[in-house]
């Protein structure tokens, strides 16, 4: 890998501007006060369904589990007006199993490569994992950036690795996971967003989290990244997509994230080419709320999820 000139965090933040923590959290608190009712709620729920990267990332995943995930992604509910999800998201070894079921459908196969979730493997290993997932049929690669390198100040290395993964992806869409909880500060999240966006292609994503740490997507880090995407777009014209992942479990939360998209990036980002939810349980609640809106009756959770038990 060719090494670029060093990038200092200090000069990067000075270039892109800092973030005030309290200010950004006040901003997103206003999203929570929005009241989304009736037709606008149904529209939002369906939009959210269409944005879900239905995810299973467990050591105990089997081809059978992935098969049922794929079927659910294709047909979240009997109601034909409820769309398919955007994608399923699985480990590389399971891509070929998903491919059998999803070939020819609108549902994409995303795979977490690059020694997910830590990324602590040699670059060559990570790149070969990416190439394997791509050749097995992955439409999208979710990579993790090197947080350790970022925190050690080796920003150019982080960026060069993203570029290397991008090249290994070929035509496959890339999602760069910043793992916001490990970057800790909003300043770092904004800086890492720019670092990634500058080597991503239009339509590639920046993504909050692996879902494997204690804190995942929040309205706060989502907002920081949306604003970074907006500033980058206004500066370059390149449309980068966004994927919050982990921790978004309820329809109500998803709608709050969509409000953030609407009020930060506007209509052009309100589609699944520009915005995704990385989630496993969210789809159940979205469908449950859609049925509630249609029937007027509150629904029991177990109808919508094998995982939620029968209590």
């Amino acid at each position, binding site marked *: 890998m060719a090494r670029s000139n060093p990038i200092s965090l200090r000069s990067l933040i000075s270039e892109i501007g800092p973030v*005030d*923590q*309290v*200010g950004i*959290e006040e901003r997103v608190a206003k999203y929570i006060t929005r009241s989304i009712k009736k037709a606008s709620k149904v529209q939002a729920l369906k939009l959210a369904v269409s944005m879900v990267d239905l995810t299973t990332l467990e050591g105990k995943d089997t081809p059978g589990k992935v098969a049922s995930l794929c079927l659910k992604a294709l047909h979240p509910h009997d109601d034909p007006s409820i769309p398919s999800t955007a994608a399923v998201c699985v480990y590389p070894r399971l891509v070929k199993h998903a491919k059998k079921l999803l070939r020819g459908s609108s549902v994409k196969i995303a795979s977490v490569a690059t020694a997910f979730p830590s990324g602590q493997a040699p670059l060559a290993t990570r790149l070969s994992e990416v190439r394997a997932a791509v050749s097995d049929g992955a439409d999208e690669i979710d990579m993790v950036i090197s947080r350790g390198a970022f925190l050690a100040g080796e920003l150019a290395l982080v960026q060069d690795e993203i570029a290397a993964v991008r090249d290994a992806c070929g035509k496959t869409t890339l999602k760069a996971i910043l793992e916001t909880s490990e970057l800790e*500060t*909003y300043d770092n999240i904004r800086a890492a967003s720019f670092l990634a966006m500058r080597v991503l292609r239009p339509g590639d994503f920046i993504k909050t989290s692996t879902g494997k740490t204690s804190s995942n997507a929040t309205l706060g880090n989502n907002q920081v990244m949306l604003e970074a995407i907006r500033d980058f777009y206004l500066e370059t014209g390149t449309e980068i997509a966004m994927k919050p992942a982990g921790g978004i479990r309820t329809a109500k939360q998803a709608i709050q994230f969509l409000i953030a998209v609407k009020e930060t990036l506007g209509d052009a980002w309100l589609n699944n080419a520009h915005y995704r939810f990385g989630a496993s349980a969210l789809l159940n609640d979205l469908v449950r709320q859609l049925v509630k809106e249609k029937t007027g009756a509150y629904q029991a959770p177990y109808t919508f999820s094998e995982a939620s038990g029968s209590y």
Partner: protein
Amino acid sequence: MSRLPITKTPKCFLGGAFIRSESGRVYEHKDSAGAFVCNIPLCTRKDLRNAVEAAAKAGPGWAKRSAYNRGQILYRIAEMLESRADELAAAISLTNPNAAASREVRAAIDRTVHYAGWTDKYESLLGSVNPVSTPHFNFTVMEPMGLIGILAPEESPLLGLLSMILPAITSGNTVIALASHGEPYPSILLGEILAVSDLPGGVVNLLTGTRADILPTMATHAHLRAVYAAANKSERTEIQQGAAEHVKRTVFLPSEKPIDWFADDAQGLYHIRHFLEAKTTWHPVGV
């Protein structure tokens, strides 16, 4: 023939310099027996205007001095007063032989020392850190108001005047004070003492003359942020009416009743507080 002594021409202390009234007018100062002592400048609104300019110029620098430094300067004033205590007492006795002149001088010196010790303390008693319920650090500091106009009492020409000046300058305000009309000479001496006390020129500006000349302008001058006056009801009314033009603060010592300048509560923290503005600053607490 004995030697004819050199008499001093009384001048007002304004902007750190000694001036005659711009009007060129004076009034006769006589002792208690009615004998001529000297001519006192009869200051007019133009002198007041000049004094305001001088006080405004001195203000920012004085307010920015460290509290410790202001305290040392006030203490230096006390030292200088002490060194001329006899002369001050004589000046008080000149027009008022019944006055407890030495006692007044001692009290004035002690009062100056009292305020010297306040400069670095009032803030921590009157200011605060405020526990607001949002993630902000919120604190209130006490700042000097700016320019303070003072109308000193007729009686206690040294202690009364100093008791009104000191609480204002302790916190970094600058003052323009009109001295007692009937007993102006201690203010002339005070000016000379202040001039050698390390007090920056313009922090204290002392005028002599009549209230009729000074009061209306002092009440309405937009640059003065407060008027502190020992005043009777009609004077208070006129000052307040004038002050309303620019929402000026007023602090009155009603002169209908005699003021006990020697009393403990003629000094202290709450006199300083009259000439402070509370400023509250908010800042987010985040990383």
